[in-house]
């Protein structure tokens, strides 16, 4: 699944104390707004609800299925994948964060930006690039062929999956750690030194323990990404739960068994999400810097060279090899006469779906943001949390549930564009809620009230006074949803009408059949869009701060 389909730090619901309560705030929402909010919440929760119903109605021996060696093997493999990704993202992400904040590493800012970009690359694009580079008949083999290398060992399986998923998700650890480092008052470390500790001891007794919650929270996000990922494990043929669900669904003896697996995956992601929330709260209480004195800088000296080599290796693996490989295969494809019109058609179809889904998503996000920003009732909190809960579900789980639901209850919708767009809109609306909510915070109810005292009705006051304030948030949120949808894989693969291709499914089909040249052009397009996404996200983060 695409990188941005995971819950991200700036896109979470605000805490309850997000805005000070002022006189005149009405905790109870007007009923049309409340009903709309409830319907949206229900839509967001629908996949989960339906999955439970379906799993309960499993025919035959569910327990026997769960205890089958193959099922247990998949669960163990999934846990191993998560743990290994967690560990390796810490090993990559923490040094990068430390080098770019606390040392005199040459080009610190550039490294900081370059190491953030991989987060926006879809995992299946990087997976495809690694196959095409390291794979049995890949670029590397081609380069080594003159040396007599006929065949390279396979990059697939657990090793390949851990490698690719670590390289796209380590920025979660880097970003969380960087933030924690910048929020640590330098006087804390200075106090420890004055109390008798040497520099290294201070690092061990103070710096590291204070950063641990943030590092762990970042690693849990990376693990969450790995467990929910469908694209990379699919292409690299590693049997994690996400891929097993897909295969079980395809095998179709008993699709309810796929629902059982999906619930297992949901349970794992819920546990990780809960752990991440607690760790992030802890990291918040460890933030000590009020005045933003810049952190003290360590002179690297001779260590500058190993440090530069490390950063070069990280950026090389996570960015240069994927981008370079895609470019290489695109050139090869163009020289062998790969048709360009096909790509144009697919791109236009994809952008159309993305645009419609973005429009629908911001429209759905508005009532939720209104409830969350203006009313502090239990209902408002329920609606907002439900919207985010749906967002946190792995894409493959949502895809599965929506197919079941459509075939069983509203068959007219099955295999239609309308269903695909609706599912996208419901799933990704949280990306627009955060910004809208923040914008509604600046355009408070006092604004509309002053309009009312000057003779406007409630709706007129809203459209004349508040709506203009929301324009930037609409645009930013919509753009984010658009970019996410355009890169989304599992829903497009399972829900889109037969014969309808998006850029993502095009890459998937071509790469899994070994047509690397055909996959390269759409992949290149997505890489360009991803870099745009990073820029947009950085801007959104600034705006919400």
């Amino acid at each position, binding site marked *: 699944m695409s990188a941005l389909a995971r819950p991200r730090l700036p896109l979470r619901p605000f805490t309850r104390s997000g805005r000070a309560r002022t006189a005149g705030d009405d905790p109870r929402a007007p009923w049309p707004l409340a009903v709309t909010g409830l319907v949206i919440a229900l839509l967001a929760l629908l996949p989960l609800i339906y999955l439970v119903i379906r799993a309960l109605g499993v025919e035959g021996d569910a327990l026997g299925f769960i205890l089958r060696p193959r099922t247990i093997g998949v669960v163990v493999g999934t846990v191993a994948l998560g743990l290994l990704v967690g560990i390796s993202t810490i090993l990559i992400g923490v040094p990068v964060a430390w080098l770019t904040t606390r040392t005199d590493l040459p080009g610190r800012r550039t490294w900081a930006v370059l190491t953030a970009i991989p987060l926006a690359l879809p995992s299946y694009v990087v997976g495809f690039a690694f196959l095409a580079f390291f794979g049995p008949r890949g670029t590397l083999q081609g380069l080594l062929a003159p040396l007599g290398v006929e065949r390279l060992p396979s990059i697939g399986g657990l090793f390949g999956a851990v490698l690719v998923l670590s390289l796209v998700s380590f920025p979660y650890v880097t970003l969380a750690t960087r933030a924690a480092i910048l929020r640590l*008052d330098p*006087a*804390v470390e*200075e*106090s*420890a*030194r*004055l*109390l*008798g*500790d*040497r520099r290294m001891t201070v690092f061990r*007794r*103070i710096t590291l*323990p*204070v950063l*641990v919650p943030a590092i762990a929270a970042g690693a849990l996000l990376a693990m969450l990404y790995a467990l929910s990922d469908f694209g990379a494990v699919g292409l690299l043929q590693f049997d994690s739960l996400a891929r097993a669900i897909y295969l079980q669904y395809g095998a179709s003896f008993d699709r309810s068994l796929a629902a059982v697996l999906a619930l297992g995956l949901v349970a794992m992601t819920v546990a990780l999400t809960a752990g991440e929330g607690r760790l992030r709260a802890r990291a918040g*209480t*460890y*933030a*000590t*810097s*009020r*005045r933003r004195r810049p952190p003290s800088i360590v002179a690297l000296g001779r260590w500058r060279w190993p440090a530069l080599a490390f950063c070069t290796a990280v950026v090389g693996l996570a960015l240069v090899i994927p981008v370079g490989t895609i470019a290489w295969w695109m050139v090869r494809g163009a020289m062998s006469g790969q048709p360009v019109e096909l790509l144009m058609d697919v791109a236009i179809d994809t952008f159309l779906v993305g645009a419609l889904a973005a429009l629908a998503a911001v429209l759905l996000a508005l009532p939720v943001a209104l409830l969350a920003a203006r009313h502090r009732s239990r209902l408002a909190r329920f609606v907002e949390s439900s919207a985010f809960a749906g967002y946190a579900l792995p894409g493959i789980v949502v895809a599965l549930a929506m197919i079941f639901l459509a075939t069983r209850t509203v068959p007219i919708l099955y295999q239609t564009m309308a269903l695909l767009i609706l599912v996208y809109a419901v799933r990704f609306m949280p990306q627009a809620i955060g910004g809208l909510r923040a914008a509604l915070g600046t355009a408070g109810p006092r604004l509309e009230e002053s309009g009312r005292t000057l003779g406007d009705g409630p709706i007129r006051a809203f459209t004349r006074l508040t709506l203009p304030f929301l324009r930037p948030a609409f645009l930013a949120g919509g753009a984010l949803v658009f970019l996410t949808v355009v890169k989304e894989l599992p829903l497009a693969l399972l829900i889109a009408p037969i014969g309808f291709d998006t850029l993502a499914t095009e890459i998937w089909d071509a790469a899994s059949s070994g047509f690397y040249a055909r996959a390269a052009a759409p992949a290149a397009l997505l890489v360009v869009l991803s870099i745009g996404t990073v820029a947009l996200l950085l801007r959104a983060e600034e705006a919400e701060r």
Partner: protein
Amino acid sequence: MTRASPDPAVRIKGLGRRFGDVVAVDSVDLEVRQGEMLTVLGPSGCGKTTVLRLVAGLDTPDAGTIEIGGRRVAGGGASVPPERRRVGMVFQDVALFPHLTVHDNIGYGLRHDPDREVRIRELLELIDLPDAGRRMPHHLSGGMQQRVAVARALAPRPDVVLLDEPFSSLDAALRTQLRGDVREILRAAGTAAVFVTHDQDEALTLGDRMAVMVRGRVEQVDAPEVVYGEPATPFVSTFVGTANLVHGEARDGFALTRFGAVRLVGQGSGGHRGRGLVVLRPEHLEVIEAPDGPADGASWRVLRRRFAGTEILYEVAAGDGERLWVEAGHAVRRLRVGDAVNLRLREIETVFFGAGHAPPHSTGPSGERAQRLAQRPDALDRLEVERIPEDDDDLADADVPVAPEVGRDLGR
């Protein structure tokens, strides 16, 4: 805990530190005696925090030497790292270890102390938080956090405790209370302390002695009442308390001013001769209400009024443009802007600055003008040219009572 050693707790000689082109600390000499609390007062950016960081070893001086407890720690080839200086420090933003309990924060510097637990309990009692040991820093109020920070700094029995504006992020009421608490705690511990602040009330009430710094230099070090009563430079006179600097002619231990003769005190008071400046505090002048009308010959007019709780200060102007801040006792009816008054000198002793110092000038309450001017390197020199603007004069000696809006203009 005062050591029997004859050495001062801290001795600083010729200390200098520059950051690029900016001279932050400029040949500073300073001594902190055993068991004393020395306050360092100065406008922000005057280099007082840099001095503290140099003493603590968190920064390295470009010139001069520092001794702590008789031991050379910086300068002259010595460079003792902060962890071996036996210095405690309390920071502006508290800087407690966020992941450790209060107990572990206080015990942090006592790793190798066999009486660690006893000492921690002792300090918890000292800071009056005997039951807070198991709490985490972020669960404590700002005042409690700062008390824990003091205890943490005191725990390893340092030779000196450095406090860097420790109360500046707290509200006024809490600050006053904590000021008393911390003074008690440090006195009970008997540890020498340096307390850096830009708040003159804090410096005056807290210090056994106080040093006044501006532009990287120490202008005066003395007991607070001496700094107030016998300021060493015009800057000190206007920065600590409110002061009027008026022209005078010195001779034989007296100076003749427009209000009459005053007895001089301070260094070399008997030797002054010739024209110079005399410091007149607001309370040195008695305000006498003039009956209505200018015909009475009243020479001063009220320009503005500043109520400071326990006292009322008035800025008054004379016909020749001179302006002064004066304090009116409660016997005087509340004066209004434009009222005519006479001033009479009380029987006082004050200081005289000979030629070469700044011209007559008065500062507003709490030396705000001096603070503002001291931010600029050339400020004190500019006092020379910053005379009272000409166009104010005709307002001050207008024949008719000054209208309220005129007063407002002057208060600009």
